[in-house]
Protein backbone atom coordinates (compact mmCIF):
# COMPACT_ATOMS: atom_id res chain seq x y z
CA UNK A 1 0.00 0.00 0.00
CA UNK A 2 1.31 3.40 -0.95
CA UNK A 3 2.05 5.68 1.93
CA UNK A 4 2.87 8.64 -0.27
CA UNK A 5 0.76 11.77 0.10
CA UNK A 6 -1.96 12.18 -2.53
CA UNK A 7 -4.65 14.59 -3.64
CA UNK A 8 -7.87 13.55 -1.91
CA UNK A 9 -10.40 16.17 -3.04
CA UNK A 10 -10.90 19.34 -5.05
CA UNK A 11 -13.37 21.99 -6.08
CA UNK A 12 -13.23 24.59 -8.82
CA UNK A 13 -15.50 27.61 -9.08
CA UNK A 14 -16.94 28.15 -12.55
CA UNK A 15 -15.11 31.25 -13.79
CA UNK A 16 -17.10 34.44 -14.32
CA UNK A 17 -16.61 37.75 -16.08
CA UNK A 18 -18.74 39.50 -13.45
CA UNK A 19 -16.75 40.24 -10.29
CA UNK A 20 -19.65 41.94 -8.49
CA UNK A 21 -20.02 40.83 -4.91
CA UNK A 22 -16.92 38.66 -5.02
CA UNK A 23 -13.61 39.10 -3.24
CA UNK A 24 -10.54 36.84 -3.19
CA UNK A 25 -11.38 35.83 0.39
CA UNK A 26 -15.02 34.99 -0.39
CA UNK A 27 -13.97 32.81 -3.33
CA UNK A 28 -11.18 31.25 -1.29
CA UNK A 29 -13.58 30.35 1.52
CA UNK A 30 -16.13 28.86 -0.85
CA UNK A 31 -13.79 26.67 -2.91
CA UNK A 32 -11.80 25.67 0.18
CA UNK A 33 -14.80 24.42 2.14
CA UNK A 34 -16.14 22.53 -0.87
CA UNK A 35 -12.74 20.92 -1.55
CA UNK A 36 -12.43 19.88 2.11
CA UNK A 37 -15.89 18.27 1.93
CA UNK A 38 -15.00 16.58 -1.35
CA UNK A 39 -11.98 15.03 0.38
CA UNK A 40 -14.29 13.63 3.06
CA UNK A 41 -12.71 15.82 5.73
CA UNK A 42 -13.85 18.30 8.35
CA UNK A 43 -12.36 21.76 8.38
CA UNK A 44 -10.72 21.03 11.74
CA UNK A 45 -8.66 18.25 10.17
CA UNK A 46 -6.88 20.69 7.82
CA UNK A 47 -3.54 21.47 9.44
CA UNK A 48 -1.62 22.95 6.50
CA UNK A 49 -2.32 25.79 4.10
CA UNK A 50 -0.68 26.89 0.88
CA UNK A 51 -2.20 29.77 -0.98
CA UNK A 52 -1.44 31.97 -3.94
CA UNK A 53 -1.19 35.72 -4.18
CA UNK A 54 -4.07 37.77 -5.54
CA UNK A 55 -4.44 40.77 -7.76
CA UNK A 56 -7.93 41.39 -6.39
CA UNK A 57 -6.60 42.03 -2.89
CA UNK A 58 -3.66 44.01 -4.24
CA UNK A 59 -0.82 41.56 -3.59
CA UNK A 60 -0.93 42.22 0.14
CA UNK A 61 1.32 41.19 3.00
CA UNK A 62 0.60 38.29 5.36
CA UNK A 63 -1.88 36.68 2.98
CA UNK A 64 -1.64 33.13 4.44
CA UNK A 65 -2.28 34.57 7.91
CA UNK A 66 -5.37 36.34 6.63
CA UNK A 67 -6.64 33.26 4.77
CA UNK A 68 -6.16 31.01 7.80
CA UNK A 69 -8.01 33.55 9.93
CA UNK A 70 -10.88 34.05 7.47
CA UNK A 71 -11.40 30.30 7.11
CA UNK A 72 -11.10 29.65 10.84
CA UNK A 73 -8.26 27.17 10.46
CA UNK A 74 -5.64 26.11 12.97
CA UNK A 75 -2.57 25.01 11.04
CA UNK A 76 0.92 23.70 11.65
CA UNK A 77 2.26 24.79 8.28
CA UNK A 78 1.37 27.71 6.02
CA UNK A 79 2.85 29.80 3.27
CA UNK A 80 2.23 31.69 0.07
CA UNK A 81 3.51 30.10 -3.10
CA UNK A 82 4.19 32.93 -5.52
CA UNK A 83 5.93 31.83 -8.66
CA UNK A 84 3.67 33.57 -11.14
CA UNK A 85 2.03 31.00 -13.37
CA UNK A 86 4.08 28.27 -11.70
CA UNK A 87 2.40 28.72 -8.34
CA UNK A 88 -0.27 26.01 -8.29
CA UNK A 89 1.86 23.06 -9.39
CA UNK A 90 4.37 24.48 -6.94
CA UNK A 91 1.78 24.17 -4.17
CA UNK A 92 1.09 20.53 -4.94
CA UNK A 93 4.63 19.26 -4.48
CA UNK A 94 5.26 21.57 -1.54
CA UNK A 95 2.18 20.12 0.15
CA UNK A 96 3.47 16.58 -0.40
CA UNK A 97 6.91 17.57 0.86
CA UNK A 98 5.50 19.14 4.01
CA UNK A 99 3.49 16.00 4.80
CA UNK A 100 6.50 13.77 4.16
CA UNK A 101 8.56 15.99 6.43
CA UNK A 102 6.05 15.33 9.21
CA UNK A 103 4.88 18.92 9.37
CA UNK A 104 1.19 18.18 8.86
CA UNK A 105 -1.40 15.66 7.61
CA UNK A 106 -3.83 17.51 5.34
CA UNK A 107 -2.77 20.55 3.33
CA UNK A 108 -5.35 22.83 1.76
CA UNK A 109 -4.02 24.42 -1.44
CA UNK A 110 -6.18 27.28 -2.63
CA UNK A 111 -6.33 30.28 -4.94
CA UNK A 112 -9.20 32.69 -5.40
CA UNK A 113 -8.90 35.89 -7.34
CA UNK A 114 -11.05 38.68 -8.69
CA UNK A 115 -10.43 40.52 -11.92
CA UNK A 116 -12.32 43.77 -12.29
CA UNK A 117 -11.54 45.13 -15.73
CA UNK A 118 -12.87 48.55 -14.76
CA UNK A 119 -10.08 49.06 -12.25
CA UNK A 120 -7.35 46.46 -12.50
CA UNK A 121 -6.70 46.77 -16.22
CA UNK A 122 -5.27 50.22 -15.67
CA UNK A 123 -3.93 49.79 -12.17
CA UNK A 124 -2.57 46.28 -11.68
CA UNK A 125 -0.24 45.44 -8.80
CA UNK A 126 3.18 46.81 -9.73
CA UNK A 127 5.96 44.75 -11.21
CA UNK A 128 9.33 44.81 -9.45
CA UNK A 129 11.21 48.10 -9.62
CA UNK A 130 13.81 46.78 -12.06
CA UNK A 131 11.05 46.09 -14.58
CA UNK A 132 9.66 49.57 -14.06
CA UNK A 133 13.15 50.97 -14.59
CA UNK A 134 14.33 49.07 -17.66
CA UNK A 135 11.28 47.66 -19.45
CA UNK A 136 8.26 49.83 -18.84
CA UNK A 137 9.65 53.20 -20.07
CA UNK A 138 9.79 51.60 -23.53
CA UNK A 139 6.23 50.30 -23.40
CA UNK A 140 7.08 46.76 -22.34
CA UNK A 141 4.23 46.84 -19.85
CA UNK A 142 2.08 43.82 -19.10
CA UNK A 143 2.59 40.42 -20.62
CA UNK A 144 1.43 40.70 -24.22
CA UNK A 145 4.38 42.60 -25.75
CA UNK A 146 6.83 40.29 -23.97
CA UNK A 147 5.22 37.16 -25.35
CA UNK A 148 4.77 38.79 -28.75
CA UNK A 149 8.53 39.28 -28.95
CA UNK A 150 9.07 35.66 -27.91
CA UNK A 151 6.62 34.55 -30.60
CA UNK A 152 8.45 36.63 -33.22
CA UNK A 153 11.83 35.17 -32.35
CA UNK A 154 10.45 31.62 -32.34
CA UNK A 155 9.05 32.24 -35.82
CA UNK A 156 12.40 33.65 -36.92
CA UNK A 157 14.51 30.78 -35.60
CA UNK A 158 12.26 27.82 -36.34
CA UNK A 159 9.91 28.94 -39.10
CA UNK A 160 6.88 28.61 -36.83
CA UNK A 161 3.77 29.72 -38.72
CA UNK A 162 0.82 31.78 -37.51
CA UNK A 163 -1.52 28.93 -38.51
CA UNK A 164 0.39 26.53 -36.27
CA UNK A 165 0.11 28.86 -33.28
CA UNK A 166 -3.58 29.34 -34.03
CA UNK A 167 -4.17 25.56 -33.98
CA UNK A 168 -3.60 25.62 -30.21
CA UNK A 169 -6.43 28.09 -29.70
CA UNK A 170 -8.71 26.20 -32.10
CA UNK A 171 -8.33 22.76 -30.51
CA UNK A 172 -8.56 24.14 -27.00
CA UNK A 173 -11.82 25.83 -27.98
CA UNK A 174 -13.15 22.42 -29.04
CA UNK A 175 -12.35 21.16 -25.53
CA UNK A 176 -14.06 24.17 -23.97
CA UNK A 177 -17.21 23.35 -25.91
CA UNK A 178 -17.37 20.08 -23.96
CA UNK A 179 -16.91 21.95 -20.67
CA UNK A 180 -20.09 23.70 -19.50
CA UNK A 181 -18.13 25.90 -17.07
CA UNK A 182 -15.72 27.32 -19.68
CA UNK A 183 -16.19 31.04 -20.35
CA UNK A 184 -15.71 30.70 -24.08
CA UNK A 185 -17.36 27.35 -24.77
CA UNK A 186 -20.27 28.61 -26.84
CA UNK A 187 -18.79 29.07 -30.27
CA UNK A 188 -16.29 27.04 -32.28
CA UNK A 189 -13.42 28.89 -33.87
CA UNK A 190 -11.37 28.03 -36.93
CA UNK A 191 -7.79 28.93 -37.73
CA UNK A 192 -9.00 31.78 -39.96
CA UNK A 193 -10.98 33.21 -37.05
CA UNK A 194 -7.82 33.38 -34.96
CA UNK A 195 -5.78 34.95 -37.74
CA UNK A 196 -8.57 37.42 -38.55
CA UNK A 197 -8.97 38.48 -34.94
CA UNK A 198 -7.52 41.84 -33.98
CA UNK A 199 -3.74 42.05 -33.75
CA UNK A 200 -2.86 43.20 -30.24
CA UNK A 201 0.93 43.09 -30.41
CA UNK A 202 2.10 41.80 -33.76
CA UNK A 203 2.29 38.79 -34.32
CA UNK A 204 -0.11 37.96 -31.47
CA UNK A 205 -3.85 38.04 -32.20
CA UNK A 206 -6.67 38.61 -29.73
CA UNK A 207 -7.71 34.94 -29.77
CA UNK A 208 -4.18 33.93 -28.75
CA UNK A 209 -4.28 36.10 -25.63
CA UNK A 210 -5.62 34.80 -22.34
CA UNK A 211 -8.68 36.50 -20.98
CA UNK A 212 -8.58 37.48 -17.29
CA UNK A 213 -11.63 36.65 -15.20
CA UNK A 214 -12.79 35.95 -11.67
CA UNK A 215 -12.62 32.48 -10.15
CA UNK A 216 -10.62 30.05 -8.09
CA UNK A 217 -9.92 26.48 -7.13
CA UNK A 218 -8.78 24.37 -4.22
CA UNK A 219 -7.45 20.89 -3.61
CA UNK A 220 -6.46 18.93 -0.55
CA UNK A 221 -3.28 16.87 -0.26
CA UNK A 222 -3.46 14.23 2.48
CA UNK A 223 -1.22 11.69 4.13
CA UNK A 224 -1.04 8.45 2.16
CA UNK A 225 -2.83 6.31 4.74
CA UNK A 226 -5.84 8.62 4.63
CA UNK A 227 -5.72 8.91 0.83
CA UNK A 228 -6.15 5.15 0.52
CA UNK A 229 -9.43 5.20 2.45
CA UNK A 230 -10.77 8.60 1.36
CA UNK A 231 -13.90 8.97 -0.77
CA UNK A 232 -12.05 9.67 -4.04
CA UNK A 233 -9.46 7.75 -6.03
CA UNK A 234 -6.19 9.24 -4.75
CA UNK A 235 -4.24 11.28 -7.28
CA UNK A 236 -0.57 10.66 -6.63
CA UNK A 237 2.44 12.81 -7.36
CA UNK A 238 4.98 10.75 -9.28
CA UNK A 239 7.43 13.62 -9.63
CA UNK A 240 7.90 17.37 -9.71
CA UNK A 241 10.59 19.62 -11.12
CA UNK A 242 10.90 23.36 -10.91
CA UNK A 243 13.17 25.80 -12.71
CA UNK A 244 14.07 29.46 -12.63
CA UNK A 245 17.03 31.49 -13.78
CA UNK A 246 17.17 33.35 -17.03
CA UNK A 247 19.39 36.33 -16.22
CA UNK A 248 16.43 38.57 -16.90
CA UNK A 249 13.84 40.75 -15.32
CA UNK A 250 10.49 39.27 -16.32
CA UNK A 251 10.34 38.65 -20.05
CA UNK A 252 13.71 37.01 -20.59
CA UNK A 253 15.10 40.01 -22.43
CA UNK A 254 18.61 38.97 -21.45
CA UNK A 255 18.22 35.18 -21.43
CA UNK A 256 21.19 33.53 -23.14
CA UNK A 257 18.84 30.93 -24.62
CA UNK A 258 15.83 33.10 -25.24
CA UNK A 259 13.80 30.56 -27.20
CA UNK A 260 14.58 27.62 -24.93
CA UNK A 261 12.42 27.96 -21.87
CA UNK A 262 12.68 27.02 -18.22
CA UNK A 263 10.69 23.89 -19.14
CA UNK A 264 13.67 22.19 -20.80
CA UNK A 265 15.80 21.67 -17.71
CA UNK A 266 12.86 20.82 -15.45
CA UNK A 267 11.20 18.36 -17.83
CA UNK A 268 14.44 16.50 -18.53
CA UNK A 269 14.87 16.11 -14.77
CA UNK A 270 11.22 15.16 -14.26
CA UNK A 271 11.14 12.34 -16.79
CA UNK A 272 14.56 11.09 -15.73
CA UNK A 273 13.76 10.87 -12.06
CA UNK A 274 10.36 9.26 -12.58
CA UNK A 275 11.71 6.80 -15.16
CA UNK A 276 8.72 7.59 -17.35
CA UNK A 277 8.54 8.33 -21.05
CA UNK A 278 6.75 11.16 -22.75
CA UNK A 279 4.57 8.52 -24.42
CA UNK A 280 3.38 7.34 -20.99
CA UNK A 281 1.44 10.58 -20.56
CA UNK A 282 -2.28 10.23 -21.28
CA UNK A 283 -2.80 13.98 -21.36
CA UNK A 284 -0.95 17.26 -20.92
CA UNK A 285 -2.33 20.29 -19.10
CA UNK A 286 -0.02 23.13 -20.13
CA UNK A 287 -0.05 26.75 -18.97
CA UNK A 288 -1.36 28.80 -21.86
CA UNK A 289 -1.32 32.51 -21.30
CA UNK A 290 -0.35 32.76 -24.99
CA UNK A 291 -0.24 30.16 -27.76
CA UNK A 292 3.55 30.37 -28.03
CA UNK A 293 3.86 29.22 -24.41
CA UNK A 294 2.05 25.98 -25.26
CA UNK A 295 4.16 25.32 -28.35
CA UNK A 296 7.42 25.98 -26.53
CA UNK A 297 6.38 23.85 -23.56
CA UNK A 298 5.50 20.94 -25.86
CA UNK A 299 8.94 21.02 -27.49
CA UNK A 300 10.99 21.90 -24.40
CA UNK A 301 9.25 19.11 -22.46
CA UNK A 302 10.43 16.74 -25.16
CA UNK A 303 7.14 15.72 -26.79
CA UNK A 304 8.76 16.64 -30.13
CA UNK A 305 12.09 17.83 -31.50
CA UNK A 306 13.10 21.37 -30.48
CA UNK A 307 11.62 23.87 -32.89
CA UNK A 308 9.10 21.42 -34.34
CA UNK A 309 6.16 22.14 -32.06
CA UNK A 310 4.36 24.04 -34.80
CA UNK A 311 4.33 20.98 -37.03
CA UNK A 312 3.44 18.85 -33.98
CA UNK A 313 0.36 20.96 -33.35
CA UNK A 314 -0.69 20.63 -36.98
CA UNK A 315 -0.14 16.88 -37.05
CA UNK A 316 -1.97 16.00 -33.84
CA UNK A 317 -5.54 16.16 -32.66
CA UNK A 318 -5.14 18.10 -29.42
CA UNK A 319 -8.72 17.61 -28.21
CA UNK A 320 -9.77 15.39 -25.31
CA UNK A 321 -10.65 12.66 -27.81
CA UNK A 322 -7.48 13.12 -29.85
CA UNK A 323 -4.05 11.52 -29.91
CA UNK A 324 -2.49 14.26 -27.71
CA UNK A 325 -5.17 15.47 -25.28
CA UNK A 326 -4.10 19.00 -24.32
CA UNK A 327 -5.74 21.45 -21.93
CA UNK A 328 -8.89 19.39 -21.88
CA UNK A 329 -10.80 22.06 -19.93
CA UNK A 330 -10.28 24.50 -22.78
CA UNK A 331 -7.08 25.93 -21.41
CA UNK A 332 -6.98 29.39 -19.92
CA UNK A 333 -7.47 30.73 -23.45
CA UNK A 334 -11.03 29.36 -23.62
CA UNK A 335 -11.81 28.48 -19.99
CA UNK A 336 -10.61 31.82 -18.56
CA UNK A 337 -7.69 32.96 -16.44
CA UNK A 338 -8.90 33.67 -12.91
CA UNK A 339 -6.49 36.43 -11.91
CA UNK A 340 -3.29 34.97 -10.51
CA UNK A 341 -4.95 31.54 -10.33
CA UNK A 342 -4.53 30.68 -14.01
CA UNK A 343 -2.25 27.75 -13.41
CA UNK A 344 -4.70 26.32 -10.89
CA UNK A 345 -7.11 25.60 -13.77
CA UNK A 346 -4.57 23.18 -15.25
CA UNK A 347 -4.03 21.48 -11.88
CA UNK A 348 -7.81 21.20 -11.34
CA UNK A 349 -8.29 19.60 -14.73
CA UNK A 350 -5.49 17.08 -14.22
CA UNK A 351 -6.97 16.01 -10.87
CA UNK A 352 -10.45 15.86 -12.37
CA UNK A 353 -9.32 13.66 -15.26
CA UNK A 354 -7.40 11.29 -12.98
CA UNK A 355 -10.38 10.97 -10.63
CA UNK A 356 -12.49 10.06 -13.66
CA UNK A 357 -14.71 13.11 -13.27
CA UNK A 358 -14.09 14.65 -16.69
CA UNK A 359 -17.70 14.03 -17.77
CA UNK A 360 -18.21 14.80 -21.46
CA UNK A 361 -14.52 15.49 -21.94
CA UNK A 362 -13.12 12.56 -19.96
CA UNK A 363 -9.92 11.22 -21.52
CA UNK A 364 -10.47 7.48 -21.85
CA UNK A 365 -8.32 5.31 -19.57
CA UNK A 366 -6.34 8.26 -18.26
CA UNK A 367 -3.81 6.99 -15.73
CA UNK A 368 -0.93 9.47 -15.96
CA UNK A 369 -0.75 13.10 -16.91
CA UNK A 370 1.78 15.89 -17.35
CA UNK A 371 0.99 19.27 -15.81
CA UNK A 372 3.09 22.30 -16.68
CA UNK A 373 2.63 25.62 -14.90
CA UNK A 374 4.32 28.90 -15.49
CA UNK A 375 4.87 31.56 -18.06
CA UNK A 376 8.10 29.67 -18.94
CA UNK A 377 10.32 32.70 -19.58
CA UNK A 378 11.09 33.22 -15.91
CA UNK A 379 9.66 30.34 -13.96
CA UNK A 380 8.22 26.89 -14.43
CA UNK A 381 7.01 23.98 -12.33
CA UNK A 382 6.03 20.68 -13.92
CA UNK A 383 4.40 17.61 -12.40
CA UNK A 384 3.55 14.07 -13.34
CA UNK A 385 0.36 12.94 -11.64
CA UNK A 386 -1.21 9.46 -11.66
CA UNK A 387 -4.22 7.63 -10.29
Amino acid sequence: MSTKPAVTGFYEMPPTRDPRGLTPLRITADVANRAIADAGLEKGQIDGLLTGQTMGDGFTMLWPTVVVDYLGLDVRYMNTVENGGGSSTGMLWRACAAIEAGMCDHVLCVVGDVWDSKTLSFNPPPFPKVAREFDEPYGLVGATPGYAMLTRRHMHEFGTKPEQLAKIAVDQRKNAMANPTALYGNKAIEIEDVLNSRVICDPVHLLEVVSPCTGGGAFVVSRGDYAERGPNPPVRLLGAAEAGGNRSIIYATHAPKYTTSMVKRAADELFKKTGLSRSDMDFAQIYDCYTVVVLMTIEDAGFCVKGQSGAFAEDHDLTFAGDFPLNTHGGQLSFGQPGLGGGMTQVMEAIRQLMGRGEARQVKNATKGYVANGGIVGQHCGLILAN
Partner: protein
Amino acid sequence: MVDFSKPLPNPTPDSQPYWDSLKAHRMSLQKCTACSSFIHYPRSRCPECGADAFEWVPVSGRGTVYTYTIARMPTHPAFGKDAPYTIAIVELEEGVRVTSNVIDCAPEAVKVGMPVEVVYEDVNDEITLAKFKPAA
Protein backbone atom coordinates in the same frame (compact mmCIF):
# COMPACT_ATOMS: atom_id res chain seq x y z
CA MET B 1 -10.22 61.22 -15.74
CA VAL B 2 -6.99 59.70 -14.54
CA ASP B 3 -3.91 61.36 -15.99
CA PHE B 4 -1.58 58.66 -17.24
CA SER B 5 1.99 59.64 -17.78
CA LYS B 6 4.56 57.31 -19.26
CA PRO B 7 6.52 55.23 -16.81
CA LEU B 8 9.99 56.68 -16.26
CA PRO B 9 13.07 55.07 -14.74
CA ASN B 10 13.82 55.72 -11.11
CA PRO B 11 17.61 55.20 -10.99
CA THR B 12 19.20 53.30 -8.13
CA PRO B 13 22.78 53.49 -6.83
CA ASP B 14 23.51 50.49 -9.09
CA SER B 15 22.05 51.99 -12.22
CA GLN B 16 22.82 55.70 -11.82
CA PRO B 17 26.02 55.52 -13.94
CA TYR B 18 24.04 53.96 -16.79
CA TRP B 19 21.41 56.70 -16.78
CA ASP B 20 24.13 59.33 -16.38
CA SER B 21 25.84 57.96 -19.48
CA LEU B 22 22.64 58.22 -21.48
CA LYS B 23 22.11 61.75 -20.25
CA ALA B 24 25.60 62.56 -21.53
CA HIS B 25 24.66 60.92 -24.87
CA ARG B 26 27.53 58.50 -24.39
CA MET B 27 26.18 55.06 -23.53
CA SER B 28 28.25 53.08 -21.06
CA LEU B 29 27.71 49.55 -19.81
CA GLN B 30 28.63 47.95 -16.53
CA LYS B 31 31.49 45.46 -16.83
CA CYS B 32 32.74 43.06 -14.18
CA THR B 33 36.45 43.57 -13.58
CA ALA B 34 36.80 40.02 -12.23
CA CYS B 35 35.32 37.98 -15.10
CA SER B 36 35.03 40.67 -17.79
CA SER B 37 31.31 40.05 -18.35
CA PHE B 38 29.21 42.94 -19.56
CA ILE B 39 26.16 43.23 -17.33
CA HIS B 40 22.75 44.67 -18.07
CA TYR B 41 20.65 45.62 -16.17
CA PRO B 42 23.23 47.01 -13.69
CA ARG B 43 23.55 45.27 -10.32
CA SER B 44 25.59 45.33 -7.14
CA ARG B 45 27.02 41.85 -7.77
CA CYS B 46 28.03 40.24 -11.05
CA PRO B 47 25.36 37.63 -11.94
CA GLU B 48 28.06 35.51 -13.59
CA CYS B 49 30.78 35.34 -10.92
CA GLY B 50 29.41 37.19 -7.89
CA ALA B 51 32.17 39.80 -7.78
CA ASP B 52 31.40 43.36 -6.74
CA ALA B 53 34.00 45.34 -8.65
CA PHE B 54 32.98 47.01 -11.87
CA GLU B 55 34.03 49.51 -14.46
CA TRP B 56 31.77 51.53 -16.70
CA VAL B 57 32.80 51.11 -20.33
CA PRO B 58 31.69 53.48 -23.09
CA VAL B 59 30.19 51.46 -25.93
CA SER B 60 29.32 52.11 -29.55
CA GLY B 61 25.55 51.92 -29.13
CA ARG B 62 25.41 49.71 -32.21
CA GLY B 63 23.61 46.42 -32.31
CA THR B 64 20.94 44.38 -34.04
CA VAL B 65 17.26 43.82 -33.50
CA TYR B 66 17.06 40.50 -31.64
CA THR B 67 13.27 40.46 -31.69
CA TYR B 68 10.44 42.96 -31.73
CA THR B 69 6.71 43.48 -31.66
CA ILE B 70 4.50 46.11 -33.19
CA ALA B 71 2.10 47.32 -30.52
CA ARG B 72 -1.11 47.84 -32.48
CA MET B 73 -2.97 48.45 -29.24
CA PRO B 74 -1.31 50.64 -26.61
CA THR B 75 0.45 48.53 -23.98
CA HIS B 76 -0.19 51.24 -21.37
CA PRO B 77 -2.72 54.10 -21.45
CA ALA B 78 0.08 56.69 -21.60
CA PHE B 79 1.24 55.22 -24.91
CA GLY B 80 -2.26 55.58 -26.38
CA LYS B 81 -1.40 58.20 -28.96
CA ASP B 82 1.76 56.39 -30.08
CA ALA B 83 0.25 53.17 -31.44
CA PRO B 84 1.38 51.54 -33.59
CA TYR B 85 4.90 51.55 -32.17
CA THR B 86 7.76 49.09 -32.12
CA ILE B 87 9.02 47.53 -28.90
CA ALA B 88 12.26 45.65 -29.42
CA ILE B 89 15.00 43.74 -27.73
CA VAL B 90 18.26 45.04 -29.14
CA GLU B 91 21.40 42.95 -28.85
CA LEU B 92 24.34 45.31 -28.48
CA GLU B 93 27.75 44.58 -29.99
CA GLU B 94 28.98 43.78 -26.48
CA GLY B 95 26.49 40.91 -26.27
CA VAL B 96 24.02 42.28 -23.76
CA ARG B 97 20.41 42.92 -24.67
CA VAL B 98 18.33 45.97 -23.86
CA THR B 99 14.62 46.61 -24.05
CA SER B 100 13.94 49.62 -26.25
CA ASN B 101 12.01 51.04 -29.17
CA VAL B 102 12.95 51.18 -32.83
CA ILE B 103 12.15 54.67 -34.09
CA ASP B 104 12.66 56.62 -37.31
CA CYS B 105 11.48 53.52 -39.14
CA ALA B 106 8.03 52.30 -40.23
CA PRO B 107 7.06 49.42 -37.91
CA GLU B 108 6.54 47.16 -40.92
CA ALA B 109 10.15 47.75 -42.05
CA VAL B 110 11.67 46.43 -38.83
CA LYS B 111 13.24 42.99 -39.20
CA VAL B 112 14.96 40.57 -36.86
CA GLY B 113 18.71 40.98 -37.35
CA MET B 114 18.41 44.54 -38.63
CA PRO B 115 21.46 46.69 -37.70
CA VAL B 116 20.50 49.59 -35.46
CA GLU B 117 22.24 52.38 -33.57
CA VAL B 118 21.38 54.25 -30.43
CA VAL B 119 19.40 57.49 -30.45
CA TYR B 120 19.26 59.49 -27.25
CA GLU B 121 15.82 60.76 -26.32
CA ASP B 122 15.94 63.44 -23.65
CA VAL B 123 12.67 63.02 -21.80
CA ASN B 124 13.29 65.69 -19.16
CA ASP B 125 16.21 67.30 -17.32
CA GLU B 126 16.94 64.08 -15.47
CA ILE B 127 16.15 61.21 -17.77
CA THR B 128 17.35 60.26 -21.22
CA LEU B 129 16.14 57.03 -22.81
CA ALA B 130 18.20 54.95 -25.23
CA LYS B 131 16.17 54.29 -28.34
CA PHE B 132 17.37 52.82 -31.61
CA LYS B 133 17.11 53.67 -35.30
CA PRO B 134 18.23 51.78 -38.40
CA ALA B 135 22.03 52.01 -38.70
CA ALA B 136 23.32 54.49 -41.23
